[in-house]
């Protein structure tokens, strides 16, 4: 199989469009995370769909396209929802990527209450049982795709255990057995190394380098003594130097992608983002002159004796712990003593709080103003304990709105603000007008909250706010581009 060379690029974000349009010779590929542009309506037989016009907006960019899944990872023992793959295939049909990628991680678990989303991409069980589970999932997903699948090497904040396979041996076993490509995320490996796991060089010695089609690079940040894969800034200089040494050893490398979250791209500035891509392109162009390729994957250490643990037990236990539940048993005890679990719990909590903030902004402001940060955190805590994370922001918002409505809180205007924001969300998700019936004049109320304060005086009465979809809804959904300096 020969895949085309796509060159150097970046993860798609609407805010980056001016850069993508201005520099097609520098940025020759753009990678879409399709689920970020999806809307979710659980009432529909096919609950997932692209926001209107979103796919076309990506398609018309001058770059070649790649598709990189973020919601339905393939590293666990549970097969992702096949309905989601149907929508991924729409993106493949529209954008014509030579391959697609997904994470060698899991985000589904179950307990007596049923299956739930873990709110975070979690590391699979690093044993033969984990390999078997992941291989089954990779094969199942790959069989439904019209192009080859590559699996991304993931982040693991847990401490390595003596009974584990090494991370490189695990990735190698999955890629070889499932016969798939590898998306080598060097920042993930760098993060793992910083946090006490295998070094990047050791990892590379163990994997079949000829299966690496794509490399991801990013920046991160520190939290509680851990390095986080936060996509929060420029690639660390040492990691760039490492990539320069590694690139010549990747004979089938076809694309290099810089990852940065849109909020951090805004603070870094488009010129700095461009500068990062120029650095990566220089390494890309120079990789042919580096050290000769040496067939790899021969240094894989023999796996340790397998443990009686099975992949499903691991996923259910780790998944329950990170969402704040208290599973029992030996494994739960061992995992709980790993400080990486506390980090994961903190990251899941903050991600959920961020999702609620992003989707119910005025409600969050009203709570912060009237309940203070501690009171708001307590409400979020209560909600998170009562309900597992939702994969889609709109569903998390609906859940929090229901939770608040059931708390009978004495917060002025709360019912009106919740009705308004839920009607807005539903209009955006369903594409149909919604009416919110309010007991206060909406204009002064909502504008005061938008400015971060309570209104001085609001007239009471019978008001209806009709939220309508309009021609500009797509632009509203997609946000505004950043401007260059």
């Amino acid at each position, binding site marked *: 199989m020969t895949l085309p060379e796509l060159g150097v690029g970046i993860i798609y974000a609407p805010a980056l469009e001016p850069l993508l349009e201005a520099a097609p010779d520098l940025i020759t590929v753009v990678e879409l995370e399709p689920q*970020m542009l999806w809307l979710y309506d659980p009432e529909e037989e096919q609950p997932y769909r692209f926001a209107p016009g979103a796919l076309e907006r990506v398609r018309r960019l001058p770059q070649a396209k790649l598709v990189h899944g973020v919601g339905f990872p393939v590293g666990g023992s549970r097969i992702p929802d096949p309905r989601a793959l149907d929508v991924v295939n729409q993106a493949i049909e529209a954008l014509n990527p030579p391959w697609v990628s997904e994470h060698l991680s899991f985000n589904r678990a179950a307990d007596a209450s049923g299956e739930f989303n873990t709110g975070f*991409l979690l590391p699979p069980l690093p044993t033969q049982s984990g390999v078997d589970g992941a291989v089954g999932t990779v094969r199942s997903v790959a069989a439904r795709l019209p192009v080859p699948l590559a699996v991304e090497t993931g982040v693991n904040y847990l401490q390595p255990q003596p009974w584990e396979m090494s991370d490189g041996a695990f990735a190698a076993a999955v890629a070889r057995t499932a016969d798939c490509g590898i998306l080598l995320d060097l920042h993930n490996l760098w993060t793992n190394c910083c946090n006490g796991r295998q070094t990047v060089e050791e990892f590379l010695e163990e994997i079949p380098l000829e299966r690496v089609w794509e490399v991801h690079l990013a920046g991160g940040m520190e939290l509680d003594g851990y390095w986080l894969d936060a996509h929060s800034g420029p690639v660390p200089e040492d990691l760039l130097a490492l990539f320069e040494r590694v690139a010549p050893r990747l004979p089938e490398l076809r694309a290099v992608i810089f990852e940065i979250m849109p909020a951090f791209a805004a603070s870094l500035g488009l010129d700095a983002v461009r500068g990062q891509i120029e650095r990566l392109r220089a390494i890309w162009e120079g990789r042919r002159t580096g050290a000769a390729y040496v067939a790899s994957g021969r240094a894989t250490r023999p796996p340790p004796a397998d443990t009686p643990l099975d992949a499903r037990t691991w996923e259910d236990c780790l998944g329950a712990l990170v969402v704040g539940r208290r599973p029992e048993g030996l494994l739960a005890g061992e995992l709980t003593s790993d400080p990486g679990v506390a980090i994961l719990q903190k990251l899941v909590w903050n991600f959920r709080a961020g999702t609620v903030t992003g989707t119910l902004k005025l409600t969050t402001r009203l709570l912060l103003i009237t309940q203070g940060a501690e009171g708001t955190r307590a409400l979020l805590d209560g909600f998170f304990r009562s309900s597992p994370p939702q994969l889609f922001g709109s569903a998390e918002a609906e859940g929090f709105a229901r939770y608040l409505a059931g708390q009978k809180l004495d917060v002025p205007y709360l019912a009106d603000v919740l009705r308004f924001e839920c009607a807005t969300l539903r209009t955006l998700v369903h594409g149909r007008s919604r009416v919110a019936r309010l007991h206060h004049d909406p204009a002064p109320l909502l*504008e005061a909250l938008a400015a971060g304060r309570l209104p001085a005086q609001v007239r009471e009465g019978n008001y209806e706010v009709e939220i309508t979809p309009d021609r500009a809804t797509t632009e509203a959904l997609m946000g505004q581009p950043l401007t260059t300096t």
Partner: protein
Amino acid sequence: MAQQHGMSEGTRVHHLPSGVIRVVVPARIASDLGRMQGITKEILGELGCGGCHSGYDLRFEQENQFIINEQGQIAR
């Protein structure tokens, strides 16, 4: 009413015979209301799945800081 408060262009107000005052707001304007002071203008990214990263989400803390700053200004 809505226009008087500068709610935004595209907003219409109807006084219904029942006495109800109906304000018609395009979704674009409604979602902007919550974001005009926010850290992101990308509502779609909020409705869909989170992006591919394993980092620390700052949105709640940034919102809290925004309110603290606003309350400080009001107090002054």
